[in-house]
C-alpha cells in the first residue's frame, strides 16, 4: 500500500475507470475494497448486483402480494372479479347492444381473452411507474440496485394474471373451444406485454420521481392506450393496409396473438408482430438505459 499523498486530485484517472471494484488507483487501500465514485454512467443492467440482491427482490414482491388484499373481505377473489365484471360490461354494451363483430368467437370469450394480457400490461405499467415514489423511504435510506423496485412491482400483475387464467380455462371448456398447438406461444406474448409495460414503466418511474406529473398522466395514458388496443373490437376493423402499422402498438400484437393462440383467429400478422417486437425492444432497452443513467440521483431528487 502506498502512503497517502495529500491532496491528490480524485481526477480523471479514477473517473474514467468504469470498473467499480478492485481498483488499484493511487491511495487505494487495497484489492477487495469497494470504491464509491462520483456520478457514473452505467449502461449495463448491473446483473451481478441484481443477483446479489435477489432475496430483497423476493421479499419486496412478497410484501406487495401480502399487503395487496389485506383487510379485504373478498381477498384474492378481486383478481377474478375485476376482469370478469369488465367482460360482462363489454359483452352487454359491445357484444349484445352494438353487435360488435368478434371474428366468429363468442363475444365474452373474445373480450376476456384480450382483457387478460391487457390487464397484465396495465397492472404492470401502473405498478412499476409508481413504484419508485411509493418506495422513496427505502431509496433515501438504504442502498440496493434500484431496478429491484420496478421489477418487484410486477409480481401483482403476474399473480392476478395467473388467477384469471383459471377463469379463462373454465370459459374455454364451457364454450367447447378445442385446444390448438399454438397455445404454447402464449408465454411469448405475455413476455411481449411485460417487456412493453416494463419499458414504459421504467421511463415513467424514473421521470415520476422528478416530475409527479407522470404519476397523474399514467392512468390517463393507459386509458387511451386501451382504446388503441383491439380489446373490445377486432383488429380486422382496421383497414388492411394499416394493419401492419397497427403493430406500432405492441399491445395490439399481444392481444391478437392471444386470440390466435387460443382460437386460431386471424393470421398473416407477421409484419405487425415484427413492428411490435421492434417497438417493444426499443422501449425496454431505452427504459433500462434511462433508468440506470438516472438512478444514482434518485435519492437526491425524490
Amino acid at each position, binding site marked *: 500500500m502506498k502512503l497517502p499523498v495529500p491532496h491528490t486530485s480524485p481526477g480523471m484517472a479514477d473517473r474514467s475507470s468504469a470498473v467499480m471494484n478492485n481498483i488499484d488507483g493511487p491511495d487505494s*487501500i487495497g484489492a477487495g*475494497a469497494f470504491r464509491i465514485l*462520483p456520478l457514473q454512467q452505467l449502461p449495463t443492467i448491473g446483473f451481478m448486483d441484481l443477483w446479489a440482491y435477489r*432475496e430483497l427482490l423476493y421479499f419486496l414482491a412478497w410484501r406487495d402480494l401480502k399487503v395487496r388484499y389485506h383487510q379485504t373481505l373478498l381477498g384474492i377473489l378481486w383478481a377474478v372479479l375485476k376482469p370478469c365484471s369488465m367482460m360482462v360490461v363489454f359483452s352487454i354494451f359491445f357484444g349484445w347492444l352494438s353487435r360488435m363483430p368478434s371474428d366468429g368467437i363468442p363475444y365474452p370469450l373474445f373480450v376476456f381473452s384480450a382483457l387478460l394480457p391487457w390487464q397484465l400490461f396495465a397492472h404492470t405499467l401502473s405498478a412499476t411507474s409508481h413504484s419508485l415514489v411509493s418506495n422513496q423511504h*427505502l431509496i433515501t435510506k*438504504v442502498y440496493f440496485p434500484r431496478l429491484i423496485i420496478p421489477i418487484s412491482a410486477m409480481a401483482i400483475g403476474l399473480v392476478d394474471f395467473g388467477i384469471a387464467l383459471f377463469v379463462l380455462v373454465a370459459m374455454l371448456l364451457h364454450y367447447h373451444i378445442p385446444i390448438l398447438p399454438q397455445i404454447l406461444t402464449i408465454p411469448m406474448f405475455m413476455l411481449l406485454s411485460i417487456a412493453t409495460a416494463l419499458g414504459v414503466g421504467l421511463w415513467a418511474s424514473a421521470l415520476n420521481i422528478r416530475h409527479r406529473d407522470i404519476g397523474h398522466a399514467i392512468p390517463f395514458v393507459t386509458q387511451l392506450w386501451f382504446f388503441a388496443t383491439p380489446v373490445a373490437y377486432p383488429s380486422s376493423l382496421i383497414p388492411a393496409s394499416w394493419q401492419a402499422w397497427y403493430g406500432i402498438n405492441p399491445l395490439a400484437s399481444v392481444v391478437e396473438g392471444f386470440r390466435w393462440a387460443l382460437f386460431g383467429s386471424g393470421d398473416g400478422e407477421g409484419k405487425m408482430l415484427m413492428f411490435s417486437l421492434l417497438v417493444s425492444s426499443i422501449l425496454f432497452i431505452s427504459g433500462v438505459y434511462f433508468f440506470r443513467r438516472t438512478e444514482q*440521483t434518485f435519492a437526491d431528487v425524490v
Partner: protein
Amino acid sequence: MNDLVIRAKNIGKQYALGDGRHWGRTVQTYIRDAFASYRDAEGTPTCDAKNRVIWALNGVSFDVRRGEVLGIIGRNGSGKSTLLKILSRITPPTTGWAELVGRVGSLLEVGTGFHPDLTGRDNIYMNGAVLGMTKREIDRQFDAIVTFAEIETFLDTPVKRYSSGMHMRLAFAVAAHLKADILLVDEVLAVGDAAFQQKCLSKMDDVSREGRTVLLVSHNIASILNLCSTALLLGRGEVLAYGGVRDVVDHYLSGSISVQGETQLHSHDKVPSEQELSFEAIRIRDGHGRVTGSIDAVQGCTVEVDYVVHREIRGGQVSLELWNGEGVCVLCTTDLDSCPESKSTARYPGLYRVSCRLDPTWFRAGRYWISLGASMPGLRALDEAPHAISFEVIDTGSIEHKLTQGRRGVIAPTIQWSATHLSTVNT
C-alpha cells in the same frame, strides 16, 4: 499490516438550492424563469436562481481502521448525514472518492421497510432483507431478535397495532443483529425509552468489541464520548477537527460554535419613535464568561440582555422565558424577582444591560430557547422577542447527569436528601 477499512478522499457533495434546477422544475417555475430572463433583458437585477448551489460536503478526507469507532459530530446541516449517505451508496459524491472494505451495513434509520399491515414476524424478514441480510441469516437470528425486542406475544400482530415503544424496539432489534464489517449509524439512539437506550448502547459497545468498525453520527455528546475512540467534527461541510474523541469534542464545545450564543434583536433605525423600550441584543455566556451557543451541563451560564429605553418609564419589567425543545416553558423569570422594591424606580433613556444567572446543573441536556418580553405589568407590553436565542445544554457525561438520564421531568435538579436511622427492626 494494512488494516484500513475505510478511506474517504476529498469527498464533496453539491446540492442545488431551491427547486432543483432543470430536472425538478415545475411548469410554474419554467414560466417564472421565462419572465425572469425577460426582466434581465430590461436590466433589472435578479437573483440568479439557477446557479445557487451549496456544498453540503467539501474536501472531506479521513481513514478508519478495523475495529475503530468513529464518531461524527457537528451542528445541524453540517453534512453529517450526507456523509453517511455517500458512504452507504445512497447518493454519489460530486467529487472525490471513498473506499470501503467488507460488508457495509447502513442504519440511517431503524425500521426501514417496515410495513404497518405486516405482522411483527413478517416485518423482521422484510426489514432484515432491506438492511441486506439473507433469509438464512434472519432465520438464524430470528429468536435472538424477538427476545431482544421483547415482543414474543405480539409476533403475529400487524405492527400498526404496536405501541410506538414496541415498534421501536422491534426495529432496533433487527438493526442490532445486522452482521456487517462496517456499520454506518445515524442518530438511531435518539429513540426508545431510557432502559432500552441503555440496552442498545451496550449492544453497540459489543459490536465494536467484536472488531467491527462503526461510524456513528450523533448529537448526543455523552454517547459519542462513551462509544467512540476517534471523532470527526464537521462544520458547513468541512472537517473542522479530526482525531481523538476527547479533543474533538472539546473543540466542538468551545470554539467552533461561538458564533452562536448572541442575537442582535433590533437595529436602531427600525425602532418606531413611539416605542418606549426596545431590545437590542441577547447573549449567552458560559462559566468562563465566553459567549457561546452551548453550555456544559456542569457549568453555569449567564443570560445577558441589552435594551434601550427611549423615553422615561416607571414600573417596567423585563422578563425571560425558558423553553425546552419539546415546546414546554421550563420557567419564567423577571428582573423584578430578586428586588421587588425597584418596581417603581424610573428607567431613564439610554442603553441598559441586565444579566441573570441560570444554573444548568438542573437542566436536562438538549436545546433551549429564550423568549424575551418587556412590559408595564398589568398595563401594556413594551417589546417582545419570542425565541430570541437558542442554546444547547450538553451532557458531557458528568456523573450526576448519567444518573438522571432515565428519569422523567422537565428539569433534573440534584435534590438534597437526608436519611435518619430511626430504629432497628428485628426480622
